[in-house]
């Protein structure tokens, strides 16, 4: 349906096609509707979008010059020889962690929420 640009005077709005992903039984609708309009979920979603953007664009780091920051620790490498205690790495980890937590919260409030493909539910530690 990507050929919409040819017909000029036809509205760009697609026909109103009410196509619920899952048809909920009546008594469930209040519940589902509430979830969708829950301001807290809106907020979580907004933050999630923000984090995804930052992760995609590259993490903004503290831009003080080397000398003004605390001295760097000795490098630590993982078993592939990649240094893992860089500032980039930590900042990224932090955002990823927040992202996972937000997704977990959204799922808790709305079990029908479809998490992104790369989301892994948090491991339950003993």
């Amino acid at each position, binding site marked *: 349906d*990507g050929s919409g640009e040819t017909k*000029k005077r036809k509205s*760009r709005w697609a026909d109103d096609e009410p196509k619920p992903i899952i*048809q909920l039984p009546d008594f469930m609708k209040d519940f589902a509707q509430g979830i969708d309009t829950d301001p807290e979920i809106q*907020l979580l979603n907004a933050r999630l979008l923000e984090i995804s953007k930052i992760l995609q664009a590259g993490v903004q780091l503290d831009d003080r010059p080397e000398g003004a920051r605390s001295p760097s620790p000795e490098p630590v490498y993982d078993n592939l020889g990649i240094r893992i205690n860089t500032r980039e790495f930590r900042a990224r980890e932090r955002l990823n962690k927040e992202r996972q937590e937000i997704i977990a919260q959204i799922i808790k409030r709305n079990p029908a929420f479809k998490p992104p493909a790369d989301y892994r539910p948090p491991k339950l530690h003993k």
Partner: protein
Amino acid sequence: QQQIALQRLMLQPTSGAASKVLCLTQVVSEDELRDDEDYEDILEDMRTECEKFGELVNVVIPRPNPNGEPSPGVGKVFLDYVDAEGASKARAGLNGRKFGGNQVVAVFYPENKFHQQEYDG
């Protein structure tokens, strides 16, 4: 089914995030907005469709700067309704629908920001 859900929604106490201003994100592309004719068409399509939910005060569609500088809010459409009822009806009715092939996301937008013409957000 939307109608029923909608009426129930309106009976609920209005949530804190509700606003008379609705923002449709990921709706239009920068290229479309550069073209005057396309822009007018989009504006008209928006007015016609969005009036169905309530009386509109204003429709704002930020356009890209001709000099190529980044311009806030490009790609979004702001709908200023006379009352919050229109905005929330529109939100329920427009969210998830397709406009020019893009799936519309409708969110309330802070009124004060809108009136100060701050469209980034």
